[in-house]
């Protein structure tokens, strides 16, 4: 009997054993839908407020002192604003968030206006309230429009062309596309995939190592004529199908979410994530799956119980999360050194595949080899730890 067939025996046993374990199966599949579901929820909840123009609803302006400025009131109403009576204390109402803005026309308005002095109009806003800014901006534009129109009329009355006071013609060209806006959401996807990589095979590793010790089946197992390195590798391999399956399910869920769910209704455009991109992401995840299992095996070797193992291993997905979440908010240009960092390089590559960018072959090769190298070192370390007597007792 050679090493391969002995490892195969260990693999088969652990695979069958964990297939019968609801915890292992649920842990592999349960975490897969978290990413797609969170992403869809974000799109449904935030999509409208972030991306949809607010122009369609009439602008409501609570206005005090309307009787002082009939011209302004008429202008506002002509431009679609719905005027409402203002509360007695406009500052408090805005500060409490009852109203987004209040316009107050003081009693001195009429005199200033007639004499040609700048007439004061008060606009109560709360600049710390981001959600109100869109309507505040609309109100400000309307008020400025009235100011410009009146000014132009006064110049014309004096025989001066009003164009003379417009020195600059400022035109803003918005180059953002619907796709680049959607990347705010898409940028979170690589992390969700890495998270699944780390949780997919987690229970199999814990069960096959800490669980084996806690059940008291490790000592009799180690008496069998099989080198410990083969036991470690066999167990480690048994976790891979669970993790790979979890990644596949996640990617299919993402694919369905982006291609079948009517995202267009919420964002105003459809996200594209084609089969080739999904397949590429799947393949790029493979070395990470090995890395996750190796790292988990090493950590679990030091723990004394199933629960302790669960606690430590449960924290692992948070480590790749840090650079991953950073990527979501501060996209970086892919550089060679980043590919040397396992899980970080992959998240950048996944991000690129997702955007439909052409990925650099050298980057892929370096990322794969760096991750496999680190995995190899971790497996070697796990074997060394298993060859110690203390592995029986889970001592440090």
């Amino acid at each position, binding site marked *: *009997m050679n090493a391969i067939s*002995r490892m195969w*025996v*260990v693999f088969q*046993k652990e695979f*069958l*054993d964990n297939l*019968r*374990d609801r915890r292992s199966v649920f842990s592999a599949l349960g975490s897969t839908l978290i990413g797609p579901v969170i992403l869809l929820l974000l799109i449904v909840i935030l999509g409208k407020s972030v991306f949809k123009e607010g122009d369609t609803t009439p602008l409501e302006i609570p206005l005090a002192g309307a009787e002082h400025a009939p011209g302004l009131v008429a202008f506002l109403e002509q431009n679609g604003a719905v005027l409402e009576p203002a509360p007695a204390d406009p500052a408090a109402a805005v500060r409490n968030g009852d109203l987004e803005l209040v316009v107050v026309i003081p009693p001195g308005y009429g005199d200033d206006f007639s004499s040609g002095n700048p007439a004061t109009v008060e606009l109560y806003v709360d600049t710390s309230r981001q959600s109100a800014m869109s309507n505040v901006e609309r109100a400000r534009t309307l008020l400025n429009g009235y100011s410009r129109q009146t000014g132009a009329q006064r110049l014309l009355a004096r025989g001066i062309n009003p164009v003379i006071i417009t020195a600059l013609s400022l035109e803003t060209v918005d180059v953002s596309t619907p796709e680049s806006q959607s990347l705010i959401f898409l940028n979170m996807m690589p992390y969700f995939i890495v998270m699944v990589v780390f949780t997919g095979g987690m229970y199999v590793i814990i069960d096959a190592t800490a669980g*084996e010790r806690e*059940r*008291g*089946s*490790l*000592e*009799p197992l*180690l*008496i*069998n*004529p*099989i*080198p410990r390195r083969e036991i470690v590798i066999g167990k480690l391999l048994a976790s891979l199908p669970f993790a790979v399956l979890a990644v596949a399910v996640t990617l299919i869920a993402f694919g369905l979410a982006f291609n079948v769910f009517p995202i267009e209704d919420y964002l105003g455009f459809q996200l594209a994530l084609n089969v080739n991109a999904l397949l590429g992401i799947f393949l790029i995840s493979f070395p990470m799956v090995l890395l996750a299992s190796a790292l988990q095996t090493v950590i679990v070797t030091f723990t004394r119980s199933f629960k302790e193992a669960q606690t430590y291993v449960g924290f692992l997905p948070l480590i790749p999360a840090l650079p991953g979440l950073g990527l979501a908010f501060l996209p970086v240009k892919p550089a060679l050194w980043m590919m040397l960092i396992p899980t970080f390089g992959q998240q950048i590559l996944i991000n690129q595949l997702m955007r439909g960018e052409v990925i650099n072959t050298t980057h892929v090769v370096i990322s794969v080899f760096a991750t496999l190298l680190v995995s190899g070192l971790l497996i070697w370390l796990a074997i060394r730890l298993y060859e110690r*007597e203390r592995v*029986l007792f889970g001592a440090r």
Partner: protein
Amino acid sequence: MIQVTELHKSFDAVKALQGVSFTAPDGQITGLLGPNGAGKTTTLRVLYTIIRQDRGTAQVDGYDTLTQPLQVQRSIGALPDSQGLYPRLTARENVRYYGRLHGLHGADLEARIDHLAAMLEMDDFLERRTEGFSTGQRVKVAIARALVHGPKNVLLDEPTSGLDVMSTRAMRSFIRRLKDEGQCVLFSSHIMQEVSALCDNIVILQAGRVVASGTPAELLSHTGQANLEDAFVAAIGSEEGLVRA
């Protein structure tokens, strides 16, 4: 045949073994007798290669535990201190796993499992998952998987602990049967009566040392006592090992 010479082993400050030597010949039952903490389990663990001694040698059929661990593991069947089974596998699957690790497979392996199941009277629960098995059923599965490859040397660490009277009797007759088949049986116990009822040779351990060894008759004449119980007390210098489990 098991040969142990001058075994020393320390765990940090605790000296578990301080020069243990004995021989367990084929076709005989050798008992390791001693109170808790005397070094019985540590000695057995050295023999089944999961603990490495600091000094001394341990050999099974001439194979050294340090330099030829795989050959030693092939030559022994062991019922260690922890006898955990895989609860999601059936009794047969538990035994089959060990058989396959020993390189057995196919019809030969299944026939061997059937033979052991008949011998240990475990047909009733052979195809059931081991979750919820009684202690007696668990021990039977643990023994079946330890002996699935037909080892010449059988090491049993406190095989009757936790068993009821009927199971204990069955275990004792099973140990005698192994002896009749020519196996070398080495088992540990802290129960003097059990050892004296079964063993051809008795090795009495106390605080990591062999304080007396030999056939029951030799032990009596060596200690100058009239019965084994007194001989045992005289050897270890206390009545610690006499408590009936």
